C-alpha cells in the first residue's frame, strides 16, 4: 500500500490554515497546533500508509497523537486528507461535535488513541508496536508524536527504555521541540533516546523534505526518534 498514491487528496498544505481557522472557540493551545502542523502534514501526505476509506485496515500504519492538546492542526490534516469532513471543523468543541479539544478515538475516524493527559501515547505505542509484531504484522509502522515538555512525564522514560530493549524497529517517536519544557533537556533530547539504544535524527520541523527524510530513515533493529525543532514556544 502506497500512501502517496492511494490517499485521496482533498486539500493541499496551502488549505490547512483555512481549515484550522474554521475551528474557533476558546481553545488555548493554538501554539501547540502551530508547532505540530508541518510534521502532521508530511506524515499524512507522504509517509503514512493508510486508506481513508478503510481506516480500520489492520495493515495500516498507525499515528498516535500523544500531545493531544491543540488538535486543530491534526483535525485540519484529517479533513484535508478526507478522514473527516471539513464541515465538521466548525463545531470544534461544541456539545454535538465529535471534535473535542482533545481527540477521542471512539468518536473520530482515523484517530488511533484518545489523548489529552500527557505521557500516555508513547507507552501505548510501545505496546501497540509489540502487539502487532507478536501477531506477525510486520508491515504496519507506529508513529507517535510527543512534545518536548511532555517528555517531562516519567512514563515516557519507562517507554523509551523498554522500546529499545524489545527492538521495536517499526516504532518511530516524533518529538516536537519548541523548548517549552520548563527545566529543559541539558545535552539535548536525542541523547535521551540514543542512550537507550534508539536511532535518532534532529531536523528542522518546518522543512518538509527534512521531515520526510527523518521519518523515512532506516533503523533496522531499533526504534527511531525524530526531534523536530520548531520556533521556541511556537
Amino acid at each position: 500500500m502506497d500512501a502517496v498514491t492511494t490517499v485521496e487528496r482533498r486539500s493541499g498544505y496551502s488549505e490547512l490554515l483555512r481549515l484550522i481557522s474554521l475551528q474557533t472557540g476558546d481553545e488555548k493551545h493554538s501554539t501547540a497546533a502551530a508547532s505540530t502542523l508541518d510534521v502532521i502534514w508530511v506524515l499524512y501526505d507522504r509517509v503514512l500508509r493508510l486508506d481513508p476509506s478503510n481506516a480500520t485496515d489492520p495493515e495500516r500504519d498507525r499515528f498516535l497523537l500523544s500531545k493531544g492538546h491543540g488538535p486543530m492542526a491534526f483535525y485540519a490534516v484529517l479533513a484535508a486528507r478526507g478522514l473527516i469532513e471539513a464541515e465538521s471543523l466548525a463545531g470544534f468543541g461544541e456539545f454535538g461535535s465529535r471534535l473535542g479539544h482533545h481527540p477521542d478515538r471512539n468518536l473520530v475516524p482515523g484517530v488511533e488513541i484518545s489523548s489529552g493527559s500527557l505521557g500516555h501515547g508513547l507507552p501505548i505505542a510501545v505496546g501497540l508496536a509489540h502487539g502487532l509484531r507478536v501477531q506477525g504484522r510486520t508491515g504496519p509502522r507506529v508513529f507517535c508524536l510527543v512534545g518536548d515538555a511532555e517528555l517531562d512525564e516519567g512514563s515516557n522514560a519507562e517507554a523509551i527504555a523498554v522500546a529499545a530493549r524489545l527492538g521495536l524497529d517499526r516504532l518511530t517517536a516524533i518529538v516536537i521541540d519548541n523548548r517549552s519544557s520548563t527545566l529543559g533537556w541539558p545535552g539535548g533530547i536525542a541523547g535521551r533516546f540514543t542512550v537507550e539504544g534508539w536511532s535518532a535524527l534532529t531536523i528542522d520541523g518546518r522543512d518538509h523534505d527534512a521531515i520526510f527524510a527523518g521519518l523515512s530513515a532506516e533503523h533496522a533493529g531499533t526504534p527511531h526518534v525524530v526531534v523536530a525543532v520548531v520556533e521556541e514556544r511556537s
Partner: protein
Amino acid sequence: MTETMRDRFVRTTSALLEEDPRLAVVLADISVSAFADASRRHPGRVVNVGIREQLLVSFAGGLALSGLRPIVHTYAPFLVERPFEQVKLDLGHQEVGAVLVSVGGSYDGSRMGRTHQTPEDVALIGTLPGWTIAVPGHPDETEVLLRDAAARDDRVYVRLSAIQNALARPVAPGRMRIERRGARATVIAVGPMLDPVLEATAGLDVTVLYATTVRPFDRDVLLATLAEPDIILVEPYQEGTSSAEIGRALPTVRHRLLSIGVPNVELRRYGDPEDHARAHGLDAGGIRARIAAWLTSGGTARGVA
C-alpha cells in the same frame, strides 16, 4: 503445601496461553519466575516490562489496540493505585479490554507495611465505568472466574488474596450463591470472608449469600432471597465498598445496612494477616460481635424489634 489463588492463577494462565493465541501476559517483575516456562513457550506473549507500572498498563492498552487480550499482573497497590490514570485512560477511555489480576489483597502484605497494602483497590476500580470485578475465595473459583475473564472482550479486575476459604464453591461468574437461607437478616460474604462469616453466623437465623463477582453487583439474587430487609455486607477490603450497590438494588425497599470491612484508617502494625483481621474486627469473633449487636439494637427496617 496448600495451593494458593496465585498458584492457580499462574497455572491457569499458562494453560490459557496454550489455548488462546489472542492472550498475552504483561508483568512488572512480580511472578516472573512463575511464568518462566510460559515465557519460553510463548516468546513475545509473556512480557516483563520491569518495575515500570505505568508502562505495565499502557503497554497492555497498546496490546489491546493491536488485537490481543492482555492479562496484566502485579501486586495490587502497584496495579491499581500507582497506575490508576493509566487504568482509567489507556484501557477505559480507549475503550479496550484487559484482565487485571492482582495479588496481595488488602493486608496480605501485613509484614511489609502500608506500601504493600491496598484495601482501597476494589473501591477505586469500582469508580470506573465498564469494569467487572471478581473476588474469588478459593483457587478453584479463581480458575472459573479467570477463564471467564480471559474469554471476554471487556475489562475485568480479578482480586486475589493469600487468605482463602477452606472449600471451593461452584461459583458462576456474575452471580451470588445462596449458601443458606434464614429469616432474620441477609449476610453477604465477599470472597475470602465466607469462612469467617459462616463461623460468625452459626446458629443465627440469617440468609448467607456468597459474592465472588461484585461488579456488576448481582441484585437479582439479593431481591429473590430477601426476607427481613436487614442486610449485612462483609467485605475483605475497604468497609462499605459495595454499600451503594445495596441501595441501588433496593431503591423502593426500606432497609437497614451494616457494612463490615477494613476501616478507612491506617493500622501502623506489622504481624500476620490474622493479626490485622483481628485488629479490624474481621475475624469470626469480631464479625459475630458486630452482627449480634446490630441485630439487637436499633430495631429493624420493618419496625422496632
